């Protein structure tokens, strides 16, 4: 099963392919074809000559607004070439980790999926929505509860249940965790482009979750469990890095309209930002998202790992398209726990839960 990622994006990845220890993302094949060498081994060289990446930000966005236009503008600003999308297979990957109608701030809004699908369809691509929810085995429930099913039916879009498909084993291109490789579902392997469409949320283990952590959901539960405990055992930051290093035919479209703060990614409260962010480099995207949330990117474990290896996190090396990020900063409340406190310079955003007398009863990571 081979699928050459022929996604010509006029951005910095072309420069990256010319650096020592070539990592040609255009030629990365997820599947049985040619799998090229790993990461650049000279981060200092990258820092000096490394490419910039761009992040497009639109503000004042609403789910009932002109999202299709916003996303089109964002993709064009990110260097996507519409003519090159003709005939390509695009998979939109939302975050449907544990949907509940009562908690819309937990999952990617269906309006975002519909808008993105229309953009790619009008460019001649075939589009499917795919997700492997990490906390619930009944994918049908997740798709229905999130409102995505109704949206898919209305738009005639297909859904790929990534938890239960035929899989392809791919060597780990990141090499940071102990995992030798990953099982990717057929829909991921066959896609020409995987669009990470996360909900912008805090995360009680790593600080926040956006386009990079969202790729956990591309891995099947039948191989990794519910939750995907194999990944937790190998280290969350390490496996986020490795998955992103291995699955690189990606762009990001972030649902930052109604977000989640506090005890994310499940139990937090809604926070309206009104933002849509689009970018071709997920590391740069997440660094920008972190700044808007009031977090320090270099203190976020997986971003620190990814810096200058998967993309830039330094502000000076990220081109801002659309809105600048500084005026949009709106600090998110985060849990006042030791592993999160240092992510922010503002102790005023730290919040606590009232602890039960029986203390913390955590059975593994999720």
């Amino acid at each position, binding site marked *: 099963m081979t699928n050459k990622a022929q996604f010509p994006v006029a951005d910095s990845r072309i420069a990256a392919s010319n650096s020592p220890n070539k990592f040609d993302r255009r030629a990365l094949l997820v599947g049985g074809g040619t799998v090229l060498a790993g990461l650049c081994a000279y981060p200092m060289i990258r820092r000096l000559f490394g490419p910039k990446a761009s992040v497009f930000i639109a503000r004042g966005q609403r789910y009932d607004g002109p999202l299709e236009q916003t996303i089109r503008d964002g993709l064009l600003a990110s260097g996507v070439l519409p003519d090159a999308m003709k005939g390509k297979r695009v998979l939109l990957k939302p975050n449907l980790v*544990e949907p509940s109608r009562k908690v819309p701030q937990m999952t990617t809004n269906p309006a975002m999926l519909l808008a993105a699908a229309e953009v790619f369809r009008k460019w001649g691509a075939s589009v499917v929505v795919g997700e492997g929810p990490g906390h619930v085995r*009944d994918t049908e429930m997740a798709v229905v509860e999130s409102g995505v099913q109704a949206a898919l039916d209305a738009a005639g879009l297909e859904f790929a249940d990534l938890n239960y*498909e035929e899989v392809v084993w791919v060597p780990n291109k990141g090499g940071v965790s102990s995992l030798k490789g990953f099982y990717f579902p057929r829909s991921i392997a066959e896609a020409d482009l995987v669009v990470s469409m996360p909900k912008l949320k805090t995360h*009680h283990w790593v600080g926040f979750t956006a386009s990079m952590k969202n790729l956990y959901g591309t891995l099947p539960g039948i191989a990794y469990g519910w939750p995907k405990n194999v990944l*937790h055992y190998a280290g969350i930051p390490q496996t986020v890095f490795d998955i992103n290093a291995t699955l690189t035919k990606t762009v990001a479209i972030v649902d930052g309209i109604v977000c989640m703060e506090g005890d994310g990614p499940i139990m937090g409260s809604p926070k309206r930002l009104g933002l849509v962010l689009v970018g071709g480099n997920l590391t740069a995207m997440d660094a920008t998202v972190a700044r808007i949330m009031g977090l320090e990117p270099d203190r976020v474990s997986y971003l620190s790992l990814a810096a200058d290896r998967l993309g830039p996190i330094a502000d000076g090396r990220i081109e801002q398209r659309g809105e600048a990020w500084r005026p949009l900063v709106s600090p998110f409340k985060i849990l006042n726990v030791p592993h999160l406190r240092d992510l922010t310079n503002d102790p005023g955003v730290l919040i606590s839960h009232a602890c039960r007398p029986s203390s913390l009863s*955590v059975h593994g990571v999720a």
Partner: protein
Amino acid sequence: MGWNDELLDRLAAQVPCGYHPNGPASSEPTALAALALSAANRPATAAIDWLAALQQPDGSIGPTETQSQPGACWPTGWAVLAALAVGRGAGRREFDVPRAVNWILQTAGDPTAGIDESLKTSTLVGSAWVTGTYSWVEPTAIHMLALKAAGFGSHPRTRHAEAMLIDRLLAGGGCNYGNTVVLGQELRPHVQPTGLAMMALAGQASSDRRIARSLDYLTANLLAETTSASLAYGLMGLAAHDRFPADGRNWLQAAYRRTISRDGAAYKLALLSLAALGTNGPLITLPARQIGARGEGRGARD
């Protein structure tokens, strides 16, 4: 022809079965199909043959023919139940039940965990999705059902699994994948794992109030619109405690119509058929029969 007969015709035509029509043949759907077909006195040897061919030397079975994530053998319990239901000598190949049971007995979730030591508060051991990782509700419930059906209802591993499942029930009833309180916040329950946990805990001696609250949670949250897998597991959870709702079969029929209007997935068809059997379903009678044979009655509940 009733809807269940029509369902079984569709199911029989898909053996070995997958989760979706275009997906790979997979152990869990095939085992569940064998259970559903044999319960209706229909041939299920093809399903058992397929499972037997997948069985590994250590007795375990993985999710599919080609997926060989080391230790991802959580469907083993389903295969044990299917083989017990269909019986020995029924097919060309024998699924080695004793070897599979021995694998379940020897394999447990890792109580030590490879994560932050300060976060662990429980060393209760059940079963993991992937060997070497933590114990979670659904694989523990699946293997507990298998052990009970195979005559190991009194075995320490079964007792540990029971304790672990009860530990993972939320204070207000119900459970999710297996966390209760995370960083001071109680999580939400979900129907499917709650249903499976209730199936596994049927007939056990515990009088923990959370069991009754979990049954109440299922009763309150099972609706006509509940999606197929959750509906089936939830109804089987209630049936295992003699609380199958009056509208249950109507809901199952409606779920069947929805399923065939979409993809007719064998996995869902098998679950719906098993749930429609109510208290006579093999996932309820097999584990209960073994408990009865050993003289263990149902415990008191409040």
